[in-house]
């Protein structure tokens, strides 16, 4: 992008993107955490809205079904006073055969400042950055990454630890042992979280049956095991991933019952956890598969907190990309 293109409509410097947690280093992640704190205060006001992004437009382009991520981004944009535009694949020209490139170029031409994109192909958001002028935010691409999920997970852990310490937030996640359990192989949430948790100093353990573990973990700062039960007592955080029933058809799992029996967070396994261990899940939860219904409702479960924090962290990301002038 050359210098002339940087000033669109007399405002804003270069379009900046969030495609991967790797786009932020440790300091970048902590900056988002700090901004999220400021937006937590905003969200508790009687009128939970600030004029920071007045006049900006955020488009959400979701080529894959999603309710919470899309609604979370739209709520975040509205609380910043930005206008929002929604594009979902089912109700649009995609069904008429329009290509992704034509779709995003059309939306960009309407004059938007940021595009949140979810796509079933890994790397689609990166392609989109070559085609449009607006900032691109990855809302989940294939089996690649889901960076805002990882940021809200980090925020939720830090916030919970801060509340336990009487309000004093820890500097990072150093000293914590975090297990990510489930379909690691196909999980963009796992990929983003491995990067984010380890960038903040946590020790990450991947737990999955061999069929759901990536072929190679080379270069990942993690340990891996297939045995959940032997690790339970050492975990500070247990992060459960959704088991997609479509994997059954790929012969990667014999049955959901067997998965629940070996890897599901049952009442017995929950009892084997440390007393203060945190239970997290990105949603949507399938009760009776990766988590037992009664465990999902235990106080240790942060699932609804994660959803609430999703809005704050996405406000922080939008403000960071469109407002603060720095990344």
């Amino acid at each position: 992008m050359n210098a002339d293109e940087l000033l669109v409509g007399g405002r804003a410097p270069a379009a900046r993107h969030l495609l991967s947690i790797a786009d932020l280093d440790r300091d970048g992640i902590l900056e988002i955490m700090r901004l999220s704190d400021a937006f937590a205060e905003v969200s508790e006001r009687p009128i939970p809205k600030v004029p920071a992004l007045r006049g900006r437009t955020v488009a959400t382009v979701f080529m894959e079904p999603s309710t919470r991520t899309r609604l979370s981004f739209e709520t975040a944009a509205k609380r910043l006073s930005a206008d929002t535009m929604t594009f979902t694949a089912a109700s649009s020209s995609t069904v008429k055969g329009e290509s992704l490139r034509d779709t995003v170029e059309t939306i960009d031409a309407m004059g938007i400042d940021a595009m949140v994109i979810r796509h079933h192909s890994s790397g689609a958001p990166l392609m989109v950055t070559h085609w449009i002028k607006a900032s691109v935010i990855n809302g989940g691409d294939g089996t690649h990454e889901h960076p805002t999920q990882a940021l809200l997970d980090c925020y939720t852990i830090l916030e919970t630890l801060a509340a336990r310490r009487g309000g004093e937030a820890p500097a990072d996640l150093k000293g914590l042992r975090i297990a990510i359990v489930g379909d690691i192989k196909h999980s963009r949430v796992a990929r983003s979280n491995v990067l984010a948790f380890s960038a903040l100093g946590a020790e990450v353990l991947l737990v999955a049956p061999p069929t759901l573990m990536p072929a190679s973990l080379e270069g990942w700062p993690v340990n891996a095991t297939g045995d959940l039960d032997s690790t339970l007592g050492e975990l500070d955080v247990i992060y459960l991933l959704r088991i997609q029933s479509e994997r059954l058809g790929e012969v990667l799992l014999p049955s959901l019952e067997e998965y629940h029996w070996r890897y599901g967070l049952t009442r017995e396994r929950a009892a084997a956890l440390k007393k203060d261990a945190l239970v997290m899940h990105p949603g949507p939860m399938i009760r009776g598969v990766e988590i037992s219904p009664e465990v999902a409702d235990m106080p240790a479960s942060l699932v609804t907190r994660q959803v609430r924090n999703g809005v704050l962290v996405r406000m922080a990301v939008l403000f960071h990309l469109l407002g603060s002038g720095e990344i």
Partner: protein
Amino acid sequence: MRIAHEIVERNRGLSDVAVVGLQTGGVPLAERLAAMLEEIEGTAVPLGSIDVAFYRDDIGLRPVLPEEVTDLPFDITGRVVVLVDDVLFTGRTVRAALEALAARGRAGAVQLAVMIDRGHRELPIRPDFVGKNLPTRRDELVEVSEQGVTIGDLVAADDDRGAR
């Protein structure tokens, strides 16, 4: 100290007065002012702080980041809010602060107390209580610390820095 007495005099007491510091320079001054007011009148005044980053009019033109989380633990509706900042320069920070306050309720009145008024206003805003008028050049940088006031040259042409 003189400002504290002026505030008491102007408002005929402190019954409805609250003191709010602007992040970050105004916050320690607001704390000192609140302590002095308590000393003079014998009653504590509500004390808060606000960060105006999300209300600035230069978002997207330069790096704007909140310094601290806003802390306004009382309802401002009907109160006389005394905004406190260290240096009054273009007036843009105060404008943002007025908008931030308005989002929280309808204050009975808003008054402005500043340690230094260095001139160069870009908006029709004037202080009610001034520690000292300090004539400056536009490109100078004014800094208020516990030790006193320093005037330096701006290295980069970043006008707004001096106003914060």
